């Protein structure tokens, strides 16, 4: 029994060693250049990487390093004193928390992007859908994300909103849910099942409709009062060693160039 326990401890040590090994983020930093560290929400990975490249091109003396993670994780990293210059969050909550904890000066944060729910359907429109109200027609095959997935939760919030004084019928939520044939485990499988024409319609975020999907699906806008809109705020951090550079990056994201790149990746400009 002792031996068993000992070998288990060994195995545990070995495994944890492996994991921490993978977690190490080794980056070669050119000492000649000034480094700018940006903490950004995971959903910004593609768009901010491109913004970073363009920013470096325009400012050859600067090297931009990104730390992409869930906004909550980023806020925790701030609390633990991570050295960084800019914070870009996927929702207002963690930016407000950062202001409250004095990582960011009050009223310094700016909304730089918005993301909203949208209905998508295949281009050949097998369900003959033209308006939001059509989604309640009996016999449709609608796929949405499961309530366990954030976008699935927001889809249910949107349906909840339709039941209180809107132009949509009173039974909209009930009829819509009766048409749901699958609660998918990721938002991308919702996109793919619509893209393949297996589903008549689906509900996703604008930024999930990328690449190939753009040409193969059509979107129906969900009105702002019914939509669950995510806002993305950005701000330079008080602790930045390079306040001017940090502000320059924030300004670049808010500039026409930065906004153009974000739009390319499906974000709505504020």
């Amino acid at each position, binding site marked *: 029994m002792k031996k068993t326990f000992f070998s*288990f401890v060994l195995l545990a040590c070995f495994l944890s060693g492996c994991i921490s090994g993978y977690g190490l983020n080794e980056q070669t930093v050119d000492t000649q250049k000034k480094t700018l560290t940006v903490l950004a929400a995971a959903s910004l990975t593609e768009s901010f990487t491109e913004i970073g490249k363009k920013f470096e091109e325009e400012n050859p003396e600067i090297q931009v390093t990104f730390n992409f993670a869930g906004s909550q994780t980023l806020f925790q990293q701030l609390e633990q004193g991570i050295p960084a210059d800019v914070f870009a969050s996927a929702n207002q909550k963690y930016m407000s928390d950062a202001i409250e904890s004095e990582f960011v000066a009050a009223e310094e944060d700016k909304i730089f992007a918005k993301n909203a729910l949208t209905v998508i359907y295949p281009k050949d429109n097998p369900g003959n859908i033209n308006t939001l109200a059509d989604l309640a027609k009996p016999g449709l095959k609608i796929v949405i994300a499961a309530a366990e997935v954030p976008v699935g939760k927001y889809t249910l919030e949107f349906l909840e909103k339709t039941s209180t004084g809107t132009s949509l019928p009173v039974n909209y939520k009930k009829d819509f849910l009766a048409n749901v044939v699958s609660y998918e485990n990721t938002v991308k499988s919702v996109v793919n099942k619509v893209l*393949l024409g297996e589903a008549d319609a689906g509900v996703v975020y604008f930024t999930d409709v990328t690449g190939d999907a753009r040409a193969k699906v059509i979107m129906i806008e969900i009105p702002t009062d019914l939509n669950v809109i995510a806002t993305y705020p950005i701000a330079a951090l008080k602790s930045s060693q390079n306040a001017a550079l940090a502000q320059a990056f924030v300004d670049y994201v808010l500039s026409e160039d930065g906004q153009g790149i974000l739009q390319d990746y499906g974000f709505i400009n504020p």
Partner: protein
Amino acid sequence: MTSIMIEKEQLKHIDFPEKKFRNPNFSNLWRLTAFPMLLFIVLPLIALFSRVPPAKILEYVNQAQILQALRVSFSSAFLSTLLAVLLGIPLAVLLSRKKDGLFRIVDTLIDLPTVLPPAVAGIALLMAFGRNGLVGVWLADLGITIPFTGAAVIMAQLFVAGPLFVRAASIGLAAIDPELKQAAELDGANRWQTFSMVILPLAWTSIVSGAVMTWARALGEFGATIIFAGNLPGKTQTMPLAIYLGFETDINIALVLSVILILISFLSIILVKGVLHNHVRHF
């Protein structure tokens, strides 16, 4: 008894040089090297069970989500196993007889679904039977759509688990001595009588064990099901799907279903081993 005594007496006079160095305690030490792998497989299962006392199973098993998942899983696995047996036996008979070039390729194709990642199986099924799929387009014209239905769950299981049955049955059938068939034919049995009264009774153990393995694998099917059949509680949400989604919300649902699934799989394998054991003993 006496003869053994004599042998031992005789052995006394023979000198075995290496025996002096052989310490029985030491020479058995190699057995310890079997422990890490055993522990690695058993420990997670024990850990899972330790988190689910029987009271918890009773508390959760009545929840609608669990009952629905159990019902969908059992009915679909039963039907897919039944189909695997009915459609699989003719194929197994064919594969058990022919061994030349073309059939060797067919033989290999049969094994492919069992080694493919189940997600690949799901996408392949969608490409074939989806609304815009190779065959699905024709079905859609007839007003039949398969994805997101109970039929899709059964087809996903049949595709992934069915080959296990075909393989087991064809091995069992190939092991039958051809002379027995010839003897039956000489005694005046027609083809059907030879098959039903000689071949089937001789191969039944491999047919049963193949069917049980198919049933157990069908119960565990996840990847092909969620891609081809989707996830709708009460209709296409099987136990593995409920476990996966439960893990992201109510861990207790995931744990209880996991324990139930492990128990069923364990009993299935025990059953197969029992059948095989008897089979060996009779020979």
